[in-house]
Every structure is written in C-alpha cells, then in structure tokens.
C-alpha cells in the first residue's frame, strides 16, 4: 500500500512537472504574440475555476477533462449549483474564472455588478421535459397529467432558471399544479424522481438524458415556449484570466459543441 501510494504520488508529480515544463516552453515560444483565444496550441497552465449551472454537470465535467487533456498542466475545477446561488457567490467575491449560467437573468446580475469581462456569449439552449421513473408507472403523457390526484410533482424554485422555465411552460399550457417541493437546483428536483419520492419533475431534457438509467423524459409541446439560453463569460476578477479565456473558447469550439450536443443541448 505504502509503496503504491509513493509510486502514484511520484507519477503524479512527474506528470505535473512535465506539464509545467511544456507550459513554460510554449509560453516562452509565444511570448511576443498576444494570447490568442480559441483552443490554440498554446497550452494553458494552472487551475481554471468554473462556476456552472447544475444542469451543465455532466457535459462540463467531460469538457473539463478534454480541456485538461488538450492543455497538460492545467486543472479545471467546477462549482455546480443553481445559477442564482453562483451569481451571488461571484458577486460576493468568490475567486472564480468563468461563469456559465442557465439563464440570461442570473448572468445579468453578474455583469451588472461589473464582474463580467466583456459581454457574455450564449453557447447553448435547453428545454424542459417531464422526468418520470423508468417505465412511466403513472402513465404521464403531458403537463395536464401532472394535475391528477395522487401524482406528486417536484419543481425547481421559481428563483432558479429551471423553475422560471417551468412556470412559463405551465402558464403556456394554462395548467396549474401544486408541487410537493420546490428544489434549489435542477439536480435536486431530478434526484427526488430517482429516489421515487415524487412521480414526476420538470427538468431539462439534458438532465433526463444524463439520468437515463433511472428516469425517462416525457417531451411536451409547451416546453418550446420556455427555452432557456445559457450564457458564458470570463470574470473580471478571474485569478487565471488566460485559463478562463481558453476554457470559454474551448466550450465554444467544435469539440466543446460536440460534447454539449451529445448531452442533448441545442445550438443557440
């Protein structure tokens, strides 16, 4: 055990050291040219801290791994939570490099406070589905079925983007439902379905797809009137600005788009 730990540690350190050397070499070579945005060959080093909406958990984790592989010597750290919570944390001075929000509203809270470096870019769109347990035991086919007696529904709280989208969709369908709980982010609402505590939850299509072993997503027409746009921005006080710019460029690149499309996001 002991020697294995030492070997792993040494291997890790070697990788880090090599990454550092490569990074140095590259940055020395391009010292005169301005740092070009985009997934260029100039390797990024250090830690990039990304605050991202909970619905981006799977796709951004994958993009983070790809980014680290493309930029040896870099580490991407994520803080996934409800977008308003992330906006509050950023405006209270959390040391983040990048903010990816599930709605323009929470992004605006950050840019209005002067914490956005440049204007945000919309990188994906997402829409809601009804997440039900595998096999759809309650036979839910649309929003109207959520009003049936004995159907327990979890929604996101209206303050978070998935909750705001849910109330827009319900308004469009002129359906009134009384949820049993209002969750603070989309993953919390989804987990209530996974646990079997509720019969349905309004979540993003991407969340239902990511949890496809336990839940299925029921599409409904009114979700088209509640499409959320996801903006991303480099933060003004980013401790690693070069890393932040490279990460945002990577998300917007074809490789980033491919991961997001595979997760079920739509192009903006």
């Amino acid at each position, binding site marked *: 055990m002991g020697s294995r730990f030492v070997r792993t540690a040494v291997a890790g350190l070697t990788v880090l050291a090599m990454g550092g050397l490569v990074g140095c070499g590259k940055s020395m070579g391009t010292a005169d040219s301005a740092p070009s945005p985009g997934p260029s060959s100039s390797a990024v080093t250090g830690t990039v801290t990304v605050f991202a909406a909970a619905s981006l958990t799977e796709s951004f984790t994958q993009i983070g791994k790809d980014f680290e592989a493309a930029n040896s010597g870099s580490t991407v750290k994520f803080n996934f939570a*409800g977008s*308003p*919570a992330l*906006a*509050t944390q950023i405006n*209270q001075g959390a040391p983040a490099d990048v903010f990816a929000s599930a709605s323009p509203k*929470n992004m605006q*809270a950050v840019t209005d406070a002067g914490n956005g470096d440049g204007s945000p870019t919309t990188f994906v769109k997402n829409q809601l589905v009804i997440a039900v347990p595998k096999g759809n035991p309650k036979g839910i086919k649309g929003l109207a079925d959520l009003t049936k007696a004995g159907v*327990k529904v*979890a929604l996101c*709280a209206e*303050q*978070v983007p998935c909750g705001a989208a849910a109330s827009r969709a319900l308004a469009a369908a002129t359906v009134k439902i009384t*949820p*049993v*709980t*209002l*969750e*603070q982010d989309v993953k919390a609402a989804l987990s*209530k379905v996974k*646990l*079997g*505590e*509720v019969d349905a939850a309004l979540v993003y299509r991407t969340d239902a797809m990511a949890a496809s072993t336990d839940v299925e997503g029921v599409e409904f027409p009114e979700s088209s009137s509640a499409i959320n746009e996801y903006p991303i921005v480099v933060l003004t006080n980013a401790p690693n600005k070069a890393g932040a710019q490279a990460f945002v460029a990577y998300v917007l690149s074809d490789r980033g788009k491919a991961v997001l499309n595979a997760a079920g996001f739509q192009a903006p």
Partner: protein
Amino acid sequence: MTGIGDHEAAERPNLAAPPRRRLAQRVPVGLLVPAALGLLFLVLPLAGLVIRAPWTTLPERLTEPATLTALGLSLQTATIATVVCLLLGVPLAWLLARVEFRGRRVIRALVTVPLVLPPVVCGVALLLVFGRKGLLGAWLDATFGFTLPFTTTGVIVAEAFVAMPFLVIAVEGALRGADARYEEAAATLGASRWTTFTHVTLPLVAPGVAAGAVLCWARALGEFGATITFAGNYPGITQTMPLAVYQTIESGDLDGAVVLSLILLTVSVTILAALHDRWITSA
C-alpha cells in the same frame, strides 16, 4: 473581578474554598488572547448580521406573509418535535440511567449517533427508512396510503430525530446526578416503580428535563439539513425558517436572507433567555 468572585462564592456557599484568590491572580496572556479571539470569532458574525441588516425596509419585510408563515411553521414544528422527544426521550434516558442490562453502553452510544452525524446524512437515512420506497415507508404507503416526505409531519420527524439525543443526554445526566436514595426510600415505602418515577424521580430531575427540552427545542428550530433532504421545501408545509433563509440567499436576495436570519436569531435568543432565567439557573 472581586465582584464576580463574591457573586460566585455567594451562589455556591457549599464550595470549600472561595475562588476569589484564583480570580485575583493575573490571567495568563496565553489564555486571555485565545479566549478573546474565540469570543470575537463567535460574536463577530452575529454582529455582521445586525450591521448588515436593511433597517429601512425592515418593517415591511418583517410583516411579509411568507416570513410569518415560515416563522409560524418553525415554532410549531420545533415545539411538537420537543414534545415528541420528551415523551420518548425521558423514558429512554431513565432506562439508560436506572436499569442495568446487557448492551447498555452500546445503546447509549447508538442514542448519541444522530448528534455527531451530519444532518444531511440523517435526512438520507430517514429517507431510506421512512421515504416512499423506504423500509417502513413503503409499507406505510401501501397500507395506509400515507407518506412522510413533503409533509409537516415529516419535518417534525426530521427535527425530532436530530434533536432527541440532546434531550436524552441532558436527562440521563440529571438522573445520574440525582440522589437515588429518595427513590429507594419510596420503594421501601411500597411505591411501585411507575409511582416512584412519576412522584419522586421526575420532580427530582425536572430542572434537568427542562434544560434538555430547551436544548432540544433550539436544535429542532435550527434544523436544516435533515429537513430539506427528507421533507423537501414548500412554503407553509415544509419550509421552516432555516429553509427560507437558504432559499432566499440562494436566489440572490441577500437583504431578505439577512432579515430572516435576524428574526430567527431574535426569536431563539429571546426564548432561550426567558427559559434560562426561569428554569436552568435553578438546576
């Protein structure tokens, strides 16, 4: 300094040596500095709440129906949870303190587990047993069509689960400290164990029970992790004050969260102070 010494000596006349001389000595800097830092650490965040409070909009925010609903629910659930804890916890404490049986140490350790568990873990554990798919919950649902999550009863269950150990420990401590000879005297005079318990033991440890109940109530009032995990979050049904504070800060309304926190702080401090004067000092 001497004032405090006099006061202490007067309050505890049975102490052999009055602590006046010890207090009169210089307090070592090595203790004074960390003590002052510790005090500052505890008081500063509370001061922050008061300083940061939006005093101008305070009156209207205080009377918002949503705030009053959450406060009412908190007071109601914490109080019922405390009653439940008293009904179950006092007998449990008596069992641990007065009856010799095998495995008593293990049971005592088990009783204190919820005390050291992170509350969110308590919530997960409650879900696994009382959730709709849980060990007992599935049966409850199938037999009575009744489920605990997302109900006010579920909030009470979560609060009682995390708060009961406080009561049991306090009451057991009081029982162990109480003079067992009174109970023996009652028994020799022919009182049954039940009569002895109700007429001798309980009055004897009443201050300890009261102190335990206050601790238990305060813990229940502040309960957050187990409640949001097990009972969910819905205004008027499961959204207690701590959940309302969390939702408000999560949605970016810092001022609102500060106001709710201030209310919770004021209510708990007021009630604890009132009960403290009345009950605990007599212990």
